């Protein structure tokens, strides 16, 4: 029983980075753009989230380092999202390759700045858990659900918030239109490119948040491989979740459980090679993609296609 408790109480915070990054990517894809550079944005977010905590540990701002870290990471995410928008929306570049370019860029810059400003792997205090008074005392469920750091609660709140934004606001309507029939949206006076820019910046901001979460809340340190594919998994999660926030939540939980399973296996003493356990989430992604064929047909039909008004229909 305690193994289940461990898996669940670990799995929930483990899923936040994936969840938030995927929710952000969902906005991108609903608007018609897939951003493989999510991984690079998360790397930058992880580093920038970590930086204030490392540099300003002593000093007047010490109490606010975590908040600063998150803000810095989100700002970087917005900027990188903007860069990606410039390349894929204005320059109409091939989104897949551009995404890989952004990933290399983000990863490279984060690594370079890390080596220069920090040097070696060091830990930070990170964000402590904040038990919700009352609810956290419920046996079993209290520990699993209500005894986490605030970023976890924030992350999960983003699920209903994303849902509302996408389905109940004018902006969400525009995003959905732009990803399915941009020409129709254009004839109705919607600035297709502007909406796509906005979606990419929002997606970038959320990926930045997710990165900062990794370094400040989950690992409480920074290293080159701290993201190790989560950004790509987030992109896959959007397909798996059928472009709906609820589906993405399910997918994120599933994948993080696969990751914590790996840890529990080690702890539980089951003889299973470490490397194979680490492989699990990536294998899972492939399996999930392989069996999610029908989903692809219901996705935003203009996903991956740039929009050119002057192009003769």
């Amino acid at each position, binding site marked *: 029983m305690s193994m289940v408790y461990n898996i669940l109480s670990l799995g929930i915070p483990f899923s936040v980075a994936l969840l938030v990054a995927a929710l952000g990517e969902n906005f991108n894809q609903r608007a018609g753009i897939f951003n493989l550079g999510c991984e690079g944005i998360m790397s930058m977010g992880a580093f920038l989230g970590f930086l204030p905590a490392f540099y300003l540990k002593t000093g007047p701002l010490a109490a606010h380092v975590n908040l600063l870290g998150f803000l810095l990471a989100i700002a970087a995410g917005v900027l990188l999202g903007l860069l990606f928008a410039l390349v894929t929306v204005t320059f109409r570049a091939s989104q897949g390759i551009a995404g890989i370019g952004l990933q290399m860029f983000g990863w490279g810059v984060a690594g370079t700045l890390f080596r220069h400003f920090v040097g070696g792997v060091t830990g930070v205090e990170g964000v402590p858990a904040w038990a919700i008074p009352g609810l956290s005392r419920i046996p079993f469920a209290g520990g699993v659900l209500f005894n986490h750091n605030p970023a976890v609660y924030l992350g999960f709140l983003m699920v209903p918030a994303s849902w509302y934004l996408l389905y109940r*606001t*004018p902006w969400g309507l*525009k995003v959905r239109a732009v990803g*399915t*029939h941009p020409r*129709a949206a254009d*004839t109705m*006076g919607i600035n297709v490119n502007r909406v796509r820019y906005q979606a990419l910046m929002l997606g970038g901001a959320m990926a930045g948040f997710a990165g900062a979460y990794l370094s400040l809340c989950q690992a409480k340190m920074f290293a080159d491989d701290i993201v190790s594919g989560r950004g790509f998994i987030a992109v896959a999660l959007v397909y798996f979740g059928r472009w709906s926030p609820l589906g993405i939540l399910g997918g994120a939980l599933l994948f993080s459980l696969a990751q914590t399973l790996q840890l529990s296996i080690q702890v539980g003493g089951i003889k299973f090679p470490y490397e194979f356990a680490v492989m699990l989430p990536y294998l899972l992604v492939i399996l999930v993609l392989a069996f999610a064929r029908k989903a692809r047909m219901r996705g935003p039909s203009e996903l991956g296609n740039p929009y050119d008004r002057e192009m003769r*229909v």
Partner: protein
Amino acid sequence: MKTASDPIQELVLKGITKRFPGVLACDDVSLEVRRGEVLALVGENGAGKSTLMNILAGLYHPDAGTISVNGKVVHFRTPSEAFARGIGMVHQNFMLVPNMTVAENVALGSKQLHHFMNLDLRGARKRILEVSEHHELPVNPDAYIWQLSVGEQQRVELVKTLCFGAQLLILDEPTSALTPQETDDLMDRLRRMTSELSIIFISHKLNEVKVLSDRVAILRHGAVVFNGRTADHTPAELAALMTGHEVTLPRNESGAAESEVILSARQLRVRGDRGHDALDGLDLELRAGEILGLAGVSGNGQRELADALAGLRRVESGTIHFQGKDVTNRPPVRMIEAGMGYIPEDRHHEGIVPSFSVKDNLVLKDYDSAKFSFSCFLRLGEIARNAEALRESFDIRCPSISTATGSLSGGNIQKVILAREIARRPKALVAVYPTRGVDMGAQEFIHTRLLAHRREGIGILLISEELEEILNLSDRIAVIYKGRILKVLPSAGATREQLGLLMAGVVHE
């Protein structure tokens, strides 16, 4: 969209010029429309009508010229601005987001319903019902667009444009996907709307122009060649003005000889892209040396039939026999080898590889043959020679045989496809909308060729939306409706009215 404050008394286009790479789409065009008038914009495919209207609707920017409303010059930088001034356009391909409801589509374009964190769908529904009642255009605000038929979608487009406060309605080929009866219905409604709106409609169907318009402007090669009152001219005069010379397209005069059946389909059931049965027990027979015209409103299974015959779509049940052999569900490469030719609907993305050169596209189906390759090595010399020869005999206008085929004009791309298919000496040829979007000269060429090859004994299945083309060229005419052949009749003696009724599914004995 706010409704425009003052009504449009007069709209004037002056000196509008627009260039696309390699083509002058609009050449110093000047037109005017007055309140309550219906102006028909006529011309062959490619004459520049759609481009001109897209400029008026704010989608394209003119390279030169002005638009003025009620005497004041206006610049439409975006469709929003055109809408704000009361100009609304219903495009040939509907501008409706398929996985949203009618109300959501209208809400999308109605800025006054966009409150920061809340979308006012109720307001949209209210407006839709108001407009729909006023103009007698019944629509259901909560229906999803993908659930609606083509005619219903068109109604939604009209209602939507009116909800946005359009006072000048631009309609681009509004009847291309309608049966003759639905067309008459639409013409009626539009006539009634002129009490409140002005209308510009684009068409190349002269009889409709005669029925609906007050004035008619004719475009040829992007320039206005005629602008006058419709009542003063006959359709024949207008046709001559449209093409610039007395065009008589070639007609099929000789009667069909009784020959053997080379291609037959029995009880075909084929699924369409959305999972429904596009062909539902279809029977068809094509004889050698005849042209069988397939008439029907687009969307009744033509594409699926052509795909199935070429081996590109799975046949769920039923059989296809070609030259006596069962070829049902054989892969495309076998059908090609057996001598089946296919001129596809999507010439730009299916009939050619746009980035390949003309000479490479001319061997698209034969690169593997002994003529053009030696074991697995391509015979570049032979390929080039072949291309030069075909370029001559089919009069393909291109800078060189190494030019990327995608950059050629529609008519020339079609010639490349035709040249390739014909040169392979097929036994049967399926031609889908072969002259759509092609200028008169190329059309004449294609028709002449088809008739010539008919005489040589090739069986041709001609699928077309143009009743005239079918009546002119076919020996027999089959009408397709909801995935079945409703009736096959000899073309001699067939009339438009007869075919129109059949196309709408009405059969009397």
